């Protein structure tokens, strides 16, 4: 079983988000970057499948050299080797082209991703990769098992319910909770990660189709209006007559 897991490099979930003075770029100052939390579900499920069936888990990131600490972390968690496509990934379509190019060279049995990258919230790279490669993309999946050597069974969320899907390998799937229980790297993992291969490759030519031109933050709330708990019912009246949401 050859599994490819794609990870993006994102601000820690507790980060305060700020932009440069001209609002043209994200300000990385003081921001801690982590593996995209959804991708950790994909990574641990891949490692579990490898442990059960044998095979290899390769992690892939499209990013500049500053993403390597998180790639090493994925190796420490249990991936076997890693590829970094050396580029500043400012467009989902560009990223999808890079992932597809790597996949075409390597015949993976499955390509696992997260449901969404929590920085740009695009939720599109997985479907784009599936479409470029002409293989199914099961999005977003919360359960993934192998039926036999050529078939996987997944459960995916649909609005208002779930679907059970069986697909032939190879396929793309994006992970969400509770596909697996993300692992924390142990000491041995951290030691061995240092010597695992991390191959840096140059991007294939691909055009970007979206250009980020400006950023803004939501308007601040006007402050909270407190209601006496003894007269809690008053809240319902305010929601109807003042806020007009009931």
């Amino acid at each position: 079983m050859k599994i490819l897991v794609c990870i993006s490099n994102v601000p820690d979930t507790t980060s305060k988000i700020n932009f440069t003075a001209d609002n043209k770029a994200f300000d990385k100052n003081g921001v801690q970057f982590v593996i995209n939390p959804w991708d950790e579900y994909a990574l641990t499920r891949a490692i579990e499948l490898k442990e059960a069936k044998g095979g290899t888990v390769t992690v892939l990131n499209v990013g500049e050299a500053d993403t390597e600490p998180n790639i090493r972390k994925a190796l420490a968690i249990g991936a076997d080797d890693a590829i970094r496509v050396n580029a500043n990934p400012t467009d989902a379509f560009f990223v999808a082209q890079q992932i597809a190019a790597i996949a075409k060279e390597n015949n993976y049995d499955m390509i696992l991703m997260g449901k969404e990258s929590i920085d740009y919230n695009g939720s599109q790279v997985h479907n784009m990769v599936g479409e470029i490669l002409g293989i199914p993309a099961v999005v977003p999946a919360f359960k993934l098992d192998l039926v036999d050597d050529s078939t996987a069974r997944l459960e995916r969320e649909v609005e208002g319910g779930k679907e059970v899907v069986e697909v032939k390998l190879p396929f793309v799937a994006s992970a969400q909770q509770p596909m697996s229980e993300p692992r924390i790297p142990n000491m041995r993992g951290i030691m061995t990660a240092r010597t695992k291969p991390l191959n840096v490759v140059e991007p294939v030519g691909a055009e970007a189709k979206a250009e980020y031109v400006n950023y803004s933050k939501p308007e601040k709330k006007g402050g909270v209006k407190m209601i006496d708990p003894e007269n809690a019912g008053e809240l319902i009246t305010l929601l109807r007559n003042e806020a007009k949401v009931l």
Partner: protein
Amino acid sequence: MSVLVFVEGLNGEIKKSSLEAASYGSQVAQQLGATATAVAIGEVHEEALTKLGEQGIEKVLYDEDSRLNSFVADAYVKVIAKAAQQESSKVLVFSNSNIGASIGAKLAVRLNGSLATNVTTLPNTDGGSFVVTRGVFSGKAFADVALTADVKIIAVKKNSFDVTHNAGATATVEKLSADLADADFAAAPKETVMQETDGVLLPEAEVVVSGGRGLKGPENWHLIEDLANALGAATACSKPVSDMDWRPHHEHVGQTGITVSPNLYIAVGISGAIQHLAGVNSSKVIVVINKDPEAPFFKAADYGIVGDAFEVVPKLIEAAKALDK
């Protein structure tokens, strides 16, 4: 040229989020001096299609192939690509649902188009540009994105666009057939299990009542459910609550759960951790009920009650029941 809007059905009607997308699409059409066409798939009542005229849709292309009743991405993509070609559409509009965003991404590859998901504004089309604003960093910011390809694909964030009602206007309905082959259904679901709910679906809800660890245990969830029922709301929860199996995972909102943007979000016994806020901070009005006056959630709230949920919520249920509908 026409702006093409994909509308999703639910129990024969058009989903509210798709009515929002239709309203959005017809306003883009007006901006560009084009017409607005919708494409519908699977089981939808004819009257529901005709009524899309109220949202400014002139024509609906309808593929009634019953194999399309459940979502199969490849087949849906084929139908919509055919409609886009027939209408020479340069702008395609979806709701930012699992289905809408999935097809949007596939069509972006197939039609060589630019895609923006999670879009919150009409495009700025000054000087031939096409710039939309979209939510980024999990509700903590917005970004303006220029879509540079010839074909533009937009997935509109739920509840960020009002449904327009041009009373009495009707759309014409035309049959569409994409000559689908069995191979297009290769990844069709084996089984679809819908939640048993007599209530409201969380992703479509206008009012959400959500409970956290402060409720102490699943046996107390009748408080959340009764308040939700009285308000016609959907129920949701924080992550630890679903991790402990007090509630099902599909109710978990936040950074690693689903994102909701209802008109009203009522949080009971939830502290307001930053990861929770990421999933709810674009709600129009937030109410927080917490016994701790220092709970961080109050900073993000519009209305607050410091008090014990077990005393406060019954009073709210009573007041909600007394509202005339």
